[in-house]
């Protein structure tokens, strides 16, 4: 069991590093899908079977396909992205490492919690999660549908192509200006 945990942990960390370091956005998306599948494996190890299924369906099935659609539609599947300056990259790696060291040092004595409830093998199954969701958290569940409605309206407003722009405030960049900013 511990070996299975280490296997999933290694897969998720390595694929997360590939997400950050891959030059081609398609490779990043594929690595992120692998990372999400290994996290679903962690959920199954934790007996959270409902969350594992929702995670695979929502994240791997819907969100990552949306990312792939956008990359294909906008024709971004070329490794032409200029890198940030060397100082910025070093700062990013140092900052991330320091963040991890700080967080890990905070739990260096180990995390010991007193379990609030007696051990129950049914936690995380559809039955227990659904019961809490539809009794205690019914109002937030309904409010989240309003959130989705506003997201739908916002997306349609944002992505709609404007027919004419009489006083367009954003004009396309000239080549010289783009070269100056990319440098």
């Amino acid at each position, binding site marked *: 069991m511990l070996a299975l945990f280490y296997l999933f942990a290694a897969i998720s960390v390595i694929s997360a590093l590939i997400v950050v370091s891959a030059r081609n956005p398609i490779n990043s998306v594929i690595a992120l899908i692998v990372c999400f599948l290994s996290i679903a494996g962690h959920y199954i190890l934790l007996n959270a079977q409902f969350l594992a299924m929702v995670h695979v369906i929502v994240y791997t099935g819907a969100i990552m396909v949306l*990312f792939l659609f956008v990359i294909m539609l906008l024709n971004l599947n070329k490794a032409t992205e200029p890198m940030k300056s060397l100082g910025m990259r070093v700062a990013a790696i140092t900052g991330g490492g320091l963040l991890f060291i700080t967080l890990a040092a905070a739990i260096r004595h180990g995390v010991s919690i007193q*379990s*609030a409830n007696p051990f129950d093998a049914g936690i995380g199954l559809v039955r227990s999660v659904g019961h809490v969701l539809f009794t205690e958290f019914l109002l937030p569940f309904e409010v989240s549908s309003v959130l989705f409605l506003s997201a739908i309206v916002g997306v349609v407003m944002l992505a709609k192509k404007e027919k004419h722009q009489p006083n367009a405030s954003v004009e396309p960049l000239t080549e010289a200006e783009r070269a100056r900013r990319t440098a």
Partner: protein
Amino acid sequence: MEEGIITAIRVVPLDHYVLLSFLLFSIGAAGVVFRRNTIIILMCLELMFNSVNLLLTAFSAHHSDPRAQVFVFFIMLVAAAEVTVGLSILVMMKRNVDSVDVNQLNRLKG
């Protein structure tokens, strides 16, 4: 099989899950600063969301409390809405400045 799943909660210490999610969160945070492509930055945000979800689920399983898993469910809902809005902003950015490079968006700079 059910026995094996139940023993996994007992065998794997909570520290391991906490350290793993810290590591994933740090990789995501470093990636936001490291990359210039907006779509990769959005993916790093997803990675950070997922590390927090994993941490909540681990504590939920060790506490035998299903409420935290409901929180994870809501985080997934909000992340789905956030990604759709973020990607439509990205489509608009590509249409207006013909690039997905965040360094192109410095028009507010005098």
